[in-house]
């Protein structure tokens, strides 16, 4: 029997992880991406490898996924990660009121934390706000978004996946009964148009999933929710620094190479293709960031950017794999065969999103092939280019 | 464009480069001495055949120095030229031919220069 051919639309984190998982499970894989690898939301992430502690109080399902995936990614893709851990620091009395809930939540989610005295915390990270009242160590990390994605893509490619970058999906091919049998593509590098036929089309376009599903007359309740991030040109800590409180704007500051990156805000938009960087958001980042690390005020802005999270509307139809991300089999939700949509989620859980999506696809084809991505070390990101 | 790079290929090594640098520094040193000596011994310049011959005969250190100078300059110029040509990614075959050419030019120039020195010193003898 020849291999089943899966077409993955989108080479963001979800797309590359799905391509890797599909290729490992024996699918022939073609990835179609309108830009380079991770040019959209994924590339512009904050870069925090979540320990899950941020969600341990309000969203424990996410938190558990995060801590598990965090530990897996450290092992399978070490050359994209700064695995130096993180701190949650409490400064105000309001922050301290969150302390008990935080300890309970982390225990419930099995996130290993350790409380430090302010002196201990300042000894570890001398640039913290000296007014801090408490600090917890957490197993956070920092990742390089492009290299994380390239490692997945490189591994997929070594297992036969084909990548069409700078290639738009301009339409879906149907069998005449409304079922999806492939895509019409436009390679913008050479300005050539062609068709790709496959057994299943995976719509992994994140905040843009609606653009693809609308080609099949389907709507998916996605709310593109951008946030701003600002990079500053000095590395002031070795760990990711989080505010000990419920998630809010500008409450994560993390080191990356020689920079600190502060994020983020949250608002909703209609079209995620271009989102300007708003000046007041950038100001907010330096205000909030310097609450955690006062020395940030003495640094220079190096870059400011927006990324658009794909948040799933509350009344989402279809089968939900979990609250954190959703995979839709459009046969079940809209009676359209041949199209699966995956969206939502977070960078830290990219591998898990792929696992669940490919599980769903395997189930559709009555295949019983286990996922092995958690145990399979990824190739070096350079192998995406170097054969 | 190659996906996999060729193995490190010989053709230029630290030794050639070091010779280029050392000969360059020596050229500079000899040039400085040359100007000083010229200024001291031949203040009016060496603008006639007779003056040049007399100068070489009266100060034997001068032709010896000139001889060394010649060797340094020729070596430096040829290694330098070769380095410029290597920047142009010659094929190994072309490089081999050029290497023989460079060696030939170097030997010839040196022999010619030394012959010339003797010819000047012995002129009219």
């Amino acid at each position: 029997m020849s291999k089943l051919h899966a077409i993955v639309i989108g080479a963001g984190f979800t797309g590359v992880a799905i391509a890797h998982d599909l290729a490992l499970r024996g699918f022939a894989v073609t990835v179609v991406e309108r830009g380079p690898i991770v040019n959209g939301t994924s590339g512009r992430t904050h870069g925090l490898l979540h320990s899950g502690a941020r969600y341990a109080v309000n969203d424990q399902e996410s938190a558990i996924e995060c801590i598990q995936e965090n530990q897996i990614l450290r092992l399978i893709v070490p050359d994209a990660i700064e695995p130096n851990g993180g701190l949650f620091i409490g400064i105000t009395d309001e922050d301290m009121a969150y302390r008990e809930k935080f300890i309970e939540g982390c225990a419930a989610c099995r996130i290993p934390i350790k409380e430090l005295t302010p002196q201990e915390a300042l000894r570890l990270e001398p640039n913290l706000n000296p007014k801090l009242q408490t600090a917890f160590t957490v197993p956070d990390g920092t990742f390089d978004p492009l290299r994380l994605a390239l490692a997945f893509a490189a591994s997929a490619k070594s297992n036969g996946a084909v990548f069409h970058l700078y290639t738009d999906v301009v339409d879906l091919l149907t069998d005449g009964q409304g079922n999806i049998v492939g895509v019409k593509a436009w390679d913008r590098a050479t300005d050539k148009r062609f068709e790709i036929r496959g057994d299943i089309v995976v719509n992994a376009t994140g905040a843009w999933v609606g653009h693809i599903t609308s080609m099949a007359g389907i709507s998916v309740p996605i709310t593109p929710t951008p946030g701003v991030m600002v990079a500053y040109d000095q590395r002031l800590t070795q760990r990711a620094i989080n505010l000990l409180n419920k998630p809010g704007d500008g409450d994560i500051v993390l080191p990356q190479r020689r920079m600190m990156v502060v994020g983020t805000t949250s608002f909703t938009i209609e079209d995620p293709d271009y989102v300007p960087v708003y000046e007041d958001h950038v100001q907010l980042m330096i205000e909030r960031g310097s609450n955690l690390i006062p020395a940030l005020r003495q640094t220079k802005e190096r870059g400011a950017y927006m990324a658009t999270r794909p948040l799933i509307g509350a009344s989402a139809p279809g089968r939900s794999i979990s609250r954190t991300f959703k995979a839709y089999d459009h046969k079940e939700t809209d009676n359209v065969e041949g199209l699966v949509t995956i969206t939502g989620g977070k960078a830290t859980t990219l591998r898990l999103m792929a696992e669940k999506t490919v599980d769903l696809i395997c189930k559709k084809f009555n295949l019983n092939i286990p996922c092995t991505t958690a145990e399979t070390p990824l190739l070096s990101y350079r192998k995406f280019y170097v054969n | 464009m190659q996906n996999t790079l060729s193995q490190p290929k010989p053709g230029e090594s630290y030794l050639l480069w070091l010779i280029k640098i050392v000969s360059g520094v020596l050229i500079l040193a000899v040039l400085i001495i040359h100007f000083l000596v010229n200024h001291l011994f031949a203040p009016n310049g060496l603008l006639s055949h007779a003056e040049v011959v007399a100068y070489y005969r009266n100060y034997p250190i001068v032709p010896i120095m000139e001889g060394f100078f010649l060797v340094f300059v020729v070596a430096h110029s040829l290694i330098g030229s070769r380095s410029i040509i290597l920047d142009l990614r010659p094929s190994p075959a072309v490089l081999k031919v050029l290497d023989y050419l460079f060696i030939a030019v170097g030997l010839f120039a040196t022999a010619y220069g030394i012959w010339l020195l003797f010819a000047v010193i012995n002129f009219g003898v």
Partner: protein
Amino acid sequence: MDTPKKPNTRGILDWFDPRGRNVGGWGFIINRLSAIGLTVYLYLHLYMLGKLAQGPEAFDAFIETAKQPAIMFGEMLVIIAGLYHGLNGLRIALNSFGIAVPAQRQLLYGVVGITLIGTVVFGVRMLTAH
């Protein structure tokens, strides 16, 4: 994606095109130009000195022709090129042993400065000598 194989380069023009280049790039351009010029001069010079072996008439006639302004201008160029190439060579030699690399720009300014002073000194001498 059909990947073209040829790199996007203009070949030798990239050596000498000063647009958008920085101080060190100019240093390289002049170094390479002076290297080529001096090499050509060296072998011409060796050939011309052959006249010494042909006797006083040939050599003195050659010296007379060398007093033409065009030739003297050429000699001036040789002196400038020699000064620059020698001093810049010293700069690169020092740098290549790990010495004063962060000061390469200042060293280059020094090289150019001394070359200019030397050019004036030799120019004046050359004009007054004849």
